[in-house]
C-alpha cells in the first residue's frame, strides 16, 4: 500500500523533527492545576509551593499529543497514493477535447471519473483548462470551447457536462480546436475519445492531426469502455419487433445482450437475451414477444446500455389506446352472440378495456378511436357531434350493415358508397361467399395474417371513384374493398364494409378480426397514411442516456417535418414529436449511419486508456484522524483536571486501547439482525424478489397498510420487513406478501422447505401476480394463462399448495374487519383465489391467497406510487380505499384466523332466535 505513496510537500516532513522539542515542552508544561477549596488553608500559606517535579504529564498523554502533531504534519505534507504522472508540457492551458456525442454515453461515468483524475494534477501544476466538447450543445447548436478556467472551476464544469443524443462533429471540433490553440498558448491537448468517427473518418483524423501538431496530444480510448451499440429497425423485416443491433467493438467471444421491452409507465413488459456472435459487427433480433402484451410495448432498449442509440421507441404504440364503442351502455350485460357489440368488446378487450357509451359520453373523454357498429342508431344531432369530433382530429372505425346500406349518403365515410348491399349468398344468387384477397405489401394493415377461411356473404360497395383504390386497405379476393380509410377534416374514418357481428360474414370469428381491430385502433395515434402533414413540434425528447424528457424551452429544438428524412442534431434531437393524439417517433438508431471506428491515430500521439490511476490524497483522512485524537485529548485533559470524574486507571487503559485502535484499521460494527425485536411486535413482511422496483413498491405498500392498520384497528404494527425465504426465519410474520416479477425463477430447495414449514406452522402467503391488466375483461380468462400466473406456477412448483377455488361471498376475508365484495388493488376485477378446503390442522384458516391486482401499488403512500395509481386506477380514491380495506381484512385473517367466521352464521342464528 505504501509503495505508491508520494508526498507533495516532502519538505514539511522536516517539521517532524520538532516533535522531540514538543515532547520536552509538554513535559515541562504541566496541565492546568486542579482547583480545591481547602479549610486548613492558613497552614498552606508559607509552604515552599514552587517545587516542580518533571515528567508528571503522563507518558501516554505525551504520546497522544505527539501523535496528533505528527498526523498534522503528515497531512500538511499532502501524501498522495498512486500519484499519477502529469500531462506533458509546462505552462499554458490544457485543452481537453471530449467526445460527448450519442456514442459517448455508454460508460459515461467511467469517462468522467477518468477526466476528474486529471484535475488535481493540473491544479498542482497551476495550469488552466479549456474544454472542447465535440457535440454541439442544445442551447445554440454551435460548437465552442469553454475556458480557460482553473482546475477548481473545471471540476464544477465537468459536473454539468452531459452526453448529447446526437452525433459529435469532429470537423467542427477540428476548426474550433485550431482556433483555441492559436488564441491561447495551449501547452498540451487531452482527448477523451469514444472510439468512433462520427462523421467522415478523415474529419476525425484531421482533428487528431491538428491537436497533435499544434500542441501534442494524449488520446484516451479504451475498447472496454467504448462499446456503443445501435438499435434500429431491421430494414428487411418490417415487423415491429424485428430489430437489428450494431456494435463498435467486435468482441472475439459471444456477447450476451439483454433486450428489454418497457410499457408506457416505464414498467418492464418483457425481457429477452440474445447472443451477439463473436466477431460480428451487426446482428438481427426477432423477438417473439407475447401477442397480448405486444401492443403495450412503447420502448425497447438494451438493458446494459444507457445511451440514446440503444433505445428504440416503438412507433404508433406509444399511448394506451382507449377505444370507445358506440353502444347503449345497458347492452353491457348482454352477451348475445348475435350482438355486434359483443364481438367488438371481446376483440378489443385483448388490448385494453373498451368503453361503451353514447356519442356524447365518448367524445367527452379522451378517446383514441371510436367504433361505430351499424346496429347502433344515432340521432341526427349525434351524427353532427360525431362528425365534428372526427373533423377535430378524431378517429372513427365504422362497420357496415343494413342501416348504412340504406343510407349511403353520409359524410362520415372514407369513400362514397353505392346504395344497397351486395349479397353473395342468398336465395336468389348463385354467387359463392367471397374470401379475402392477397396480403397487402403496404398500407396500414400490412403484415397481417390473412386467413383463408374467412368468407364474406354481404358487403356494401364503394362507388368506383379514382381515390377508392388508394384508400383501400384490405380487399376481398375479387378485388372489392373490405376495409377503406380516409381523412375527414383533421381526423380519419375507416370503414369495414361488412358487419361487426356474424350477420354478413364470419369475419368476426377470425383472428384477423382481432388483429385488424387492434391495428386500426393503434393507427389512431398516427400511422403512415395519417401522419400529420404539418410540422410537428417536440413533445418528449431523448437525452444522451436514452431517457425521455420534456424539452427544455431554452433549447434549440425545433419542429420537424415528418416528410423529410430525420437527421438527429441539436435542433432536432431524437424523441417524440407532435401533440397528444398525433405524434411521430423519431429514433436515433434509424437515422444513424453505420458505426465507424476512429481507426489509426497519427504518429506522435501518446495513447492511454480509461483505466483509473487510482490517485488518492490521504490528507482528509489524516486530518480527520488528527481531529479525532484532538477531541480525545481534550476529554482526557478534562478527566485529568477532575472536571469529569473517572478512575485514573481506567483512563489509562482506555487511552492505550484507543491508541491501539487508531493505529490499526478501523473495524466496522456489524448490525445484528434483531430477531428478539421481531417477537415484540407485529411485523408485516414481503418477499424480496431481487427486483428493486418491485421490492420498493412492496415495502411502500406494506408501510401504507401499516399506517392504515395502526390508524383504524387495534393492531399495532411495529414495522415492515423484507424477507428472503431461503435464509430468513419466517415464523415471526403473520403473512408474507409475495409479488411476482419478471426475474423470479423456481425457488431453491431450501427456500421451498422454509416456505412449506411456514405454511405448515400456520403462516399465510399472499401471492400477487400483478398482471390483472393482461387478464380478460371479465377476469376469468383461461386459468393460469396470464404471465404472472405462469410465473407463479413456475416459482411455486416446489411448494405444495392444495387445490384452489375462487373466494366467494361467504369467505372469511369478506368479513374479517370490513365487509367486502371485491378486492381491488392497482387493478380491479380479477379473481381472488384461496384454498378450496383449508387444512383442518389450522382450524380451517386459509393459508394461501392468490390474486393479480397489484395491491401493494394501491396501498403505498409514496407520492410517486400514488401518482402512478391515480393514473392507472379506474376509480381513484375509492378504489384505493377498498384496496386498503382488503389489506386490513387480510391482516385480520392472518392474525385472528377463523375467529370471525362465526359471523357467517349470524343471519341464520338470528333467524333461529326470532323463530
Amino acid at each position, binding site marked *: 500500500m505504501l509503495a505508491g505513496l508520494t508526498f507533495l510537500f516532502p519538505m514539511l516532513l522536516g517539521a517532524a523533527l520538532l516533535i522531540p522539542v514538543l515532547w520536552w515542552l509538554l513535559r515541562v508544561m504541566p496541565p492546568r492545576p486542579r482547583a*480545591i477549596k481547602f479549610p486548613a*488553608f492558613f497552614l498552606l500559606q508559607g509552604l515552599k*509551593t514552587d517545587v516542580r517535579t518533571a515528567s508528571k504529564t503522563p507518558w501516554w498523554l505525551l504520546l497522544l499529543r505527539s501523535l496528533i502533531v505528527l498526523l498534522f504534519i503528515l497531512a500538511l505534507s499532502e501524501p498522495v497514493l498512486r500519484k499519477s504522472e502529469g500531462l506533458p508540457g509546462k505552462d499554458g492551458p490544457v485543452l481537453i477535447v471530449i467526445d460527448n456525442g450519442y456514442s459517448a454515453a455508454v460508460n459515461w461515468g467511467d469517462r468522467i471519473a477518468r477526466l476528474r483524475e486529471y484535475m488535481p494534477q493540473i491544479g498542482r501544476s497551476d495550469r488552466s483548462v479549456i474544454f472542447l466538447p465535440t457535440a454541439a450543445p442544445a442551447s445554440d447548436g454551435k460548437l465552442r470551447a469553454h475556458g480557460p478556467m482553473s482546475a477548481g472551476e473545471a471540476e464544477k464544469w465537468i459536473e454539468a457536462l452531459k452526453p448529447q443524443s446526437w452525433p459529435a462533429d469532429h470537423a467542427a471540433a477540428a476548426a474550433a480546436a485550431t482556433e483555441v490553440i492559436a488564441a491561447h498558448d495551449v501547452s498540451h491537448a487531452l482527448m477523451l475519445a469514444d472510439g468512433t468517427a462520427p462523421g467522415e473518418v478523415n474529419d476525425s483524423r484531421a482533428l487528431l492531426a491538428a491537436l497533435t501538431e499544434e500542441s501534442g496530444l494524449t488520446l484516451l480510448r479504451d475498447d472496454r469502455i467504448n462499446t456503443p451499440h445501435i438499435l434500429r429497425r431491421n430494414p428487411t423485416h418490417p415487423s415491429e419487433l424485428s430489430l437489428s443491433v450494431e456494435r463498435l467493438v467486435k468482441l472475439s467471444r459471444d456477447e450476451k445482450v439483454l433486450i428489454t421491452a418497457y410499457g408506457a409507465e416505464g414498467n418492464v413488459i418483457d425481457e429477452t437475451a440474445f447472443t451477439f456472435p463473436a466477431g460480428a459487427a451487426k446482428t438481427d433480433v426477432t423477438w417473439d414477444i407475447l401477442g397480448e402484451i405486444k401492443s403495450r410495448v412503447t420502448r425497447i432498449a438494451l438493458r446494459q446500455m444507457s445511451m440514446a442509440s440503444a433505445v428504440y421507441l416503438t412507433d404508433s404504440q406509444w399511448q394506451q389506446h382507449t377505444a370507445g364503442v358506440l353502444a347503449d351502455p345497458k347492452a353491457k350485460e348482454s352477451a348475445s352472440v348475435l350482438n355486434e357489440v359483443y364481438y367488438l368488446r371481446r376483440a378489443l378487450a385483448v388490448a385494453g378495456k373498451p368503453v361503451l357509451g353514447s356519442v356524447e359520453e365518448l367524445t367527452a373523454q379522451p378517446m383514441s378511436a371510436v367504433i361505430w357498429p351499424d346496429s347502433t342508431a344515432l340521432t341526427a344531432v349525434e351524427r353532427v357531434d360525431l362528425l365534428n369530433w372526427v373533423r377535430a382530429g378524431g378517429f372513427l372505425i365504422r362497420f357496415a350493415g343494413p342501416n348504412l346500406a340504406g343510407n349511403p349518403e353520409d359524410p362520415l365515410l372514407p369513400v362514397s358508397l353505392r346504395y344497397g348491399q351486395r349479397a353473395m349468398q342468398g336465395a336468389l344468387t348463385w354467387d359463392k361467399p367471397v374470401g379475402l384477397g392477397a396480403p397487402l405489401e403496404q398500407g396500414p394493415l400490412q403484415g397481417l395474417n390473412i386467413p383463408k377461411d374467412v368468407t364474406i356473404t354481404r358487403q356494401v360497395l364503394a362507388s368506383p371513384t379514382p381515390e377508392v383504390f388508394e384508400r383501400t386497405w384490405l380487399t376481398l379476393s375479387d378485388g372489392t374493398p373490405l376495409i377503406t380509410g380516409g381523412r375527414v377534416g383533421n381526423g380519419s374514418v375507416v370503414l369495414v364494409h361488412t358487419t361487426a357481428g356474424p350477420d354478413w360474414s364470419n369475419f368476426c370469428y377470425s383472428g384477423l378480426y382481432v388483429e385488424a381491430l387492434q391495428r386500426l385502433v393503434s393507427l389512431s395515434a398516427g400511422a403512415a397514411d395519417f401522419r400529420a402533414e404539418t410540422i410537428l413540434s417536440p413533445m418528449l425528447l431523448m437525452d444522451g442516456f436514452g431517457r425521455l424528457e420534456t424539452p427544455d424551452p431554452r433549447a434549440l429544438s425545433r419542429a420537424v417535418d415528418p416528410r423529410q428524412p430525420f437527421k438527429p442534431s441539436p435542433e432536432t434531437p431524437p424523441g417524440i414529436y407532435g401533440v397528444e393524439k398525433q405524434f411521430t417517433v423519431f429514433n436515433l438508431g434509424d437515422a444513424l449511419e453505420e458505426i465507424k471506428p476512429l481507426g489509426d491515430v497519427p504518429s506522435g500521439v501518446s495513447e492511454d486508456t480509461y483505466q483509473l490511476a487510482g490517485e488518492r490524497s490521504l490528507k482528509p483522512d489524516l486530518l480527520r484522524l488528527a481531529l479525532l485524537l484532538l477531541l480525545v485529548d481534550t476529554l482526557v485533559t478534562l478527566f485529568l483536571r477532575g472536571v469529569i470524574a473517572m478512575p485514573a486507571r481506567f483512563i489509562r487503559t482506555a487511552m492505550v486501547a484507543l491508541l491501539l485502535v487508531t493505529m490499526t484499521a478501523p473495524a466496522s460494527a456489524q448490525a445484528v439482525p434483531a430477531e428478539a425485536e421481531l417477537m415484540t411486535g407485529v411485523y408485516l413482511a414481503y418477499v424480496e424478489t431481487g427486483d428493486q422496483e418491485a421490492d420498493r413498491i412492496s415495502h411502500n405498500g406494506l408501510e401504507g397498510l401499516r399506517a392504515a392498520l395502526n390508524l383504524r384497528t387495534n393492531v399495532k404494527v411495529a414495522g415492515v420487513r423484507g424477507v428472503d425465504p431461503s435464509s430468513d426465519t419466517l415464523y415471526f410474520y403473520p403473512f408474507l406478501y409475495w409479488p411476482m416479477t419478471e426475474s423470479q425463477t423456481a425457488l431453491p430447495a431450501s427456500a421451498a422447505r422454509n416456505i412449506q414449514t411456514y405454511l405448515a406452522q400456520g403462516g399465510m402467503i399472499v401471492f400477487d401476480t400483478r398482471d390483472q391488466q393482461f387478464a380478460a375483461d371479465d377476469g376469468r380468462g383461461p386459468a393460469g394463462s396470464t404471465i404472472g400466473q405462469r410465473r407463479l406456477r413456475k416459482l411455486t412448483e416446489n411448494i405444495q399448495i392444495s387445490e384452489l377455488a375462487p373466494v366467494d361471498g361467504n369467505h372469511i376475508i369478506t368479513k374479517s374487519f370490513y365487509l367486502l365484495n371485491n378486492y381491488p388493488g392497482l387493478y380491479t376485477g380479477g379473481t381472488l383465489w384461496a384454498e378450496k378446503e383449508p387444512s383442518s390442522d389450522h382450524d380451517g384458516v386459509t393459508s394461501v391467497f392468490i390474486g393479480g391486482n397489484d395491491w401493494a401499488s394501491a396501498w403505498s403512500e409514496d407520492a410517486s406510487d400514488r401518482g402512478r395509481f391515480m393514473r392507472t386506477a379506474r376509480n381513484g380514491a375509492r378504489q384505493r380505499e377498498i384496496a386498503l380495506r382488503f389489506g386490513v381484512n387480510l391482516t385480520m385473517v392472518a392474525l385472528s384466523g377463523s375467529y370471525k367466521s362465526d359471523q357467517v352464521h349470524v343471519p341464520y342464528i338470528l333467524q333461529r332466535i326470532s323463530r
Partner: protein
Amino acid sequence: MKKDDDKRTHDNMTQAAHLAGNLPGLLLQAEKIAHTVMRGVHGRRRVGQGETFWQFREYQVGDSSRDIDWRQTAKRDAVFVRQLEWEASQTVWLYRDASESMQYRSSPKLPYKKDYAEVLLLALAMLILDGGEQVSLLGTTLAPQAHAGAAQRLHDYLPGQKEFDTPGRAIAARSNMILLSDFYFPLDRVQAFCAPLAEKEVRGLMVQITDPAEETLPFTGRIKFHDIENGKSSPVTVEQVDAVRAEYVEKFAAHRAALGDMARSFGWRLLTASTADKPEALLARIYDLLAAKG
C-alpha cells in the same frame, strides 16, 4: 466533591433544602448515639448539697448541729454528722463551629465536619439533660435548659450559633464548656476568649474535629488551593503537593500541639476527632471526662 462543597456553601436554596431534610435526621442520629452511652443520674462522687447519702463523718468544730445524725451518734462513741452527696446541677455550655471551614468533606463517603459536630453536640446535650444537668448554647440567648425534652429547643437554636466569642448569655463561674471546632484560626483569638473564663474556674473541653484530608494532605500533582473561609484571599498554587506534604503535616501537628498546650495552661483538655471515626466512641469519652471532672 469540591463542586458539591461549593454548592452546599453558596447556594442557599440548596442548603436550605439540605438542612430541612437533614436536621430531624441529625436529632435522630444524635439520639441513637446518645443511647449508646449508659444513662442515669451520675453522682459527683463527692460531698455536697444533695439528697443522697454520701457518708458519716466524725463531728468537727464548725459543723452545723443540724447535720448531726443522732441515730449514728447514739450507736457509737463519737458524734457523727451525716453528709450528703453533692448534687447541685451545673450548666454545660456547648459550642460547635459553624464557619465555612467546617463545611468541608474530602470525600462523599465522609460527613461534613459541621454535620459531625452538630450530631455530637446534640447527642451530648441529650446525655447531659438526662443526667439532670443544664445545657445551653454558647454565644446565643438561650437560657440554660434543664428538662429532658430540651434537645429539640437546642436544635432550633443551633442555626443561631455563629462565633464562639459572640456576646451571648454570661457564663457563670465554675460551669462547664465544650467547644467543638476545627480551630483553624489564630490561637490568640481562642486564648483571648478562654483566659477570662479559665479565671472564673470554668472547666473547658476542646474537641478538634478534622477531616482526614486535612491531616494528611493526600492530593497529588499541581493544585491551586483556595481559602474556603475567604474567597477573596489569593489562592496558593502548589506545583507538586507531594513535595510539600511532609512540611504540611508537620505544621498541622505543631498547630495541634500548640492548641493542646493552650488547653493545658487553662487546666482544660483537648480531644481530637476525625470525621472518619465513629462519633459514638468520642461521645462516650467526652461524657466520661465530663463526669470524672465533676
